Structure formats: structure tokens, C-alpha cells
């Protein structure tokens, strides 16, 4: 079964609005990562948050991690049409030799 599960599966917003995507997981983790995928091809790493961190920022991205709830959220502020993509969370649980396990993704559409 999937380690990470994203919510919602699809999200449609207007340009300028904020987009929030959530990820839940099941086991303890070393870190949680967010990736972006355009056009069903290679994924691009966005941000990594360690298990002892609660919040991290990178440009218009803000990631939170709540290990007690086994959940994370990715916030994209002031969205742009170019942010349209699929976003995936991935967990590194350490017990499997630092293997990354991905969730099903959130498909974000930002309308101009």
C-alpha cells in the first residue's frame, strides 16, 4: 500500500490564490519530500523537510510537518499558471535503507 497519500487528488484555483496540498503517511520517517511533475514525465525535487523540523520555506513554497499526526502540507502562495502540475510527497523511512516511497499525487490546475 502507499506510504504517502495526498489530498486532494485534484485542485483547481485561480491565478493569485494560494494552493494547499496535504500528505499523510503511516510509518516513522527520516524526512518527507515534495516533488513536482509536469506532463507525466520526470519529477523535480522541490523541498525536503527532516523529521525534527516543523516548517520550511523555499520561495513561494511553505511546507509543514506534523510527525504526531503523520502528515505534511505544501502551500504554494500567489499561484501562477506555470504552477500547474502534479505534486507528490515522498517519505524516507530509514528502515528500508532510505528508500523513497511516493503517494498518488495532487493534480493542481491554476487558471489564468
Amino acid at each position, binding site marked *: 500500500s502507499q506510504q504517502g497519500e495526498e489530498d486532494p487528488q485534484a485542485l483547481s484555483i485561480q491565478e493569485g490564490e494560494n494552493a494547499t496540498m496535504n500528505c499523510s503517511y503511516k510509518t516513522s520517517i527520516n524526512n518527507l519530500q515534495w516533488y513536482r511533475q509536469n506532463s507525466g*514525465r520526470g519529477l523535480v525535487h522541490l523541498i525536503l523537510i527532516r523529521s525534527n523540523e516543523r516548517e520550511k520555506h523555499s520561495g513561494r513554497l511553505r511546507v509543514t510537518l506534523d510527525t504526531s499526526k503523520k502528515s505534511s502540507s505544501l502551500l504554494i502562495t500567489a499561484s501562477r499558471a506555470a504552477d500547474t502540475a502534479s505534486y507528490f510527497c515522498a517519505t524516507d523511512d530509514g528502515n528500508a535503507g532510505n528508500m523513497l516511497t511516493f503517494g498518488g499525487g495532487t493534480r493542481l490546475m491554476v487558471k489564468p
Partner: protein
Amino acid sequence: GAGVSQSPSNKVTEKGKDVELRCDPISGHTALYWYRQRLGQGLEFLIYFQGNSAPDKSGLPSDRFSAERTGESVSTLTIQRTQQEDSAVYLCASSLRGRNTEAFFGQGTRLTVV
């Protein structure tokens, strides 16, 4: 090379034929992953190589699927007697050994079984 390279980028094959997909990871990356992604779906884990450890093959969907890796370099994913349900994008990624490292993905091989 500068990034993870996969070949071919597209492959159309007839049902029942064998196919071999290739992945060249970033030099020095000891970890290598293969994932499968069906249209509009998430990433399905197939196999994970980490250095000289035995690979984690728990994601391979059937014995028609196999993968090898030569040391810490090239990996090949082989699908024997392809079926239409094997049609998908096959993604390879590599990362440095150890914790808290990001994975770098290739652009994938789009496999179509007709």
C-alpha cells in the same frame, strides 16, 4: 552525465515481445529506483538498488519483470512477454547514499504495448 538518462524515451512493442529499458544514473549515486506510472496515476514502486546491498524487489508486479544494476552504474529493467497492461511510463531515479538526500529523476520511458 549531468542528470539521469533513460533510453529509449518512447517504445512501442507488440504484445508478447520482450523489452529492455535502460537507466544511466548520476555518477556517484549509489541508490537507484525504478517506478511505473500509468496515465493519470501515482508512482508505483518497482525495485530499489542501494550500493552492494541486495536489491529490494518487492514492487515487481510479476516474474515477467526483472532488473539488474552493474555496480553503481547502469541499470536495465526487462519486461518479458509484454502485456497491454504493461503500457505506462517507466521512471528511473538516483540519489546519493544516506539520509536526507533528494532523488533525481530521468525523463522516463513511455512504453506502449499494442
